[in-house]
């Protein structure tokens, strides 16, 4: 009996893991239903769905990048105050004084860019294999919402270092909102909290970036994965190309 088996069969370990064995397919299925995280997975998938050629593993890549961003982002929050007087100096301080600060800020920045790429590539891959077709139409729509949230997360985070790059990129980005017919000026005012990018903008973008948007993303992502699980066993007949009826 190896160590993990002994843990699972002990009194305390057994209370954690519930299903003690992973030997038969039935055990493994039971393991899925009794595990909080694995519960998001189906028990079985079509063979083609585990191949790199079919998925590129772009969905799981996007999710892992979001996990990296959450961990590194929480770390950065400990050393950052979202006000024009503090923000830039805090980022400098993170890079020069905080242990592993430069590394974790780098990881946060690059993972954010990679997540935009991964989500966009996931969308393209899903399109080319036709995985938006019935019964998965709505999950495609949920995916588009996730793409928009990802872009908003990246854009709100872009302002936080409060350097020239951040300031003017957000000035350009938000100036487009002013062209919305009728309510453009109000939309821009709502985003900026004033006529130009300033302390109100920084605070708004910060709150959106660290609380509102990540929580929204987790909620919508959970729906996305749950629907994937539900649809995993409803298959299209790939040989004839017809919906099974």
């Amino acid at each position, binding site marked *: 009996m190896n160590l993990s088996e002994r843990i699972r069969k002990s009194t305390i370990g057994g209370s954690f893991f519930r299903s003690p064995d992973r030997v038969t397919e039935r055990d493994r*299925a039971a*393991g899925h239903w009794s595990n909080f995280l694995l519960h998001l*997975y*189906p028990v*079985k*998938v*079509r*063979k083609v*769905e*585990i191949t790199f050629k079919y998925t590129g*593993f772009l969905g799981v890549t996007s999710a892992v*990048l979001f996990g*990296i961003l959450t961990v590194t982002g929480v770390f950065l929050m400990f050393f950052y105050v979202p006000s024009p007087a503090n923000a830039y100096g805090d980022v400098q301080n993170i*890079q020069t004084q905080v242990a592993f600060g430069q590394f*974790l*800020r*780098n*990881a946060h*920045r*690059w993972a954010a*860019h990679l997540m*935009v790429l991964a989500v966009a590539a996931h969308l*393209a891959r899903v*399109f080319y*294999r036709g995985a*938006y*077709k*019935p019964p998965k*139409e709505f999950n*495609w729509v949920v995916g*588009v919402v996730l*793409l928009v949230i990802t872009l908003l997360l*990246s*854009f709100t985070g872009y302002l936080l*270092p*409060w*350097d*020239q790059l951040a*300031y*003017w*990129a957000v000035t*350009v*980005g938000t100036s*487009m*909102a002013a*062209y*919305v*017919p009728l309510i453009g000026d109000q939309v821009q005012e709502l985003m900026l909290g004033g006529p*130009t990018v*300033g302390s109100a903008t920084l605070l708004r973008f910060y709150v959106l970036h660290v609380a509102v948007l990540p929580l929204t993303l987790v909620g919508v992502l959970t729906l996305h994965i749950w629907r994937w699980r539900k649809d995993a*066993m*409803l*298959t*299209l*007949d*790939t040989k004839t*190309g*017809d*919906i*099974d009826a």
Partner: protein
Amino acid sequence: MLDPDPKIIGDKRLLGVVPGKPGVGDRKEPAAEETVMVWPNLLVRHAVAALVVILVVVLIAVFFDAPLREIANPLNTPNPEKAPWYFAALQELLAQFHPLVAGVLVPGAIVLGLVALPYVDRNPSLDPRKRQIARATFTVFMVLWIALTLIGFMFRGENWSWVWPWQEWHGEL
């Protein structure tokens, strides 16, 4: 209540036969040989994918520092003034068309078009050869978007004039 005349098939007593399709309706249960258990087949692959992603991010973060320019100065507008790279295509359009088109109509049409896609494309086929119109349309828009993004990101310099990225570099990450 005992069945006075039970039908026996093999050793089993047959209780009844119900007409119609299976209760789940139109759905087909895939044949057993087409499916695999997620544990361990998919979980192992996802774990490897996660490790690869983490490794890639760690390597990039070790070797490349995130940019940090001078402190924000509302009185000093840089030239060129660039949006983040994923909005570079929109910014490029903004230089060519009326702001209402580039800033509102195009992004709105992209999002609405993506949302509408599964309801517009009702062709049930998954065979690439039977989806040529859908694939061609999507490919054209995607290539166009990537080209515009690259142009806005790398090929635009002072006053949004054309530059060659190997001569002057203006891309900002």
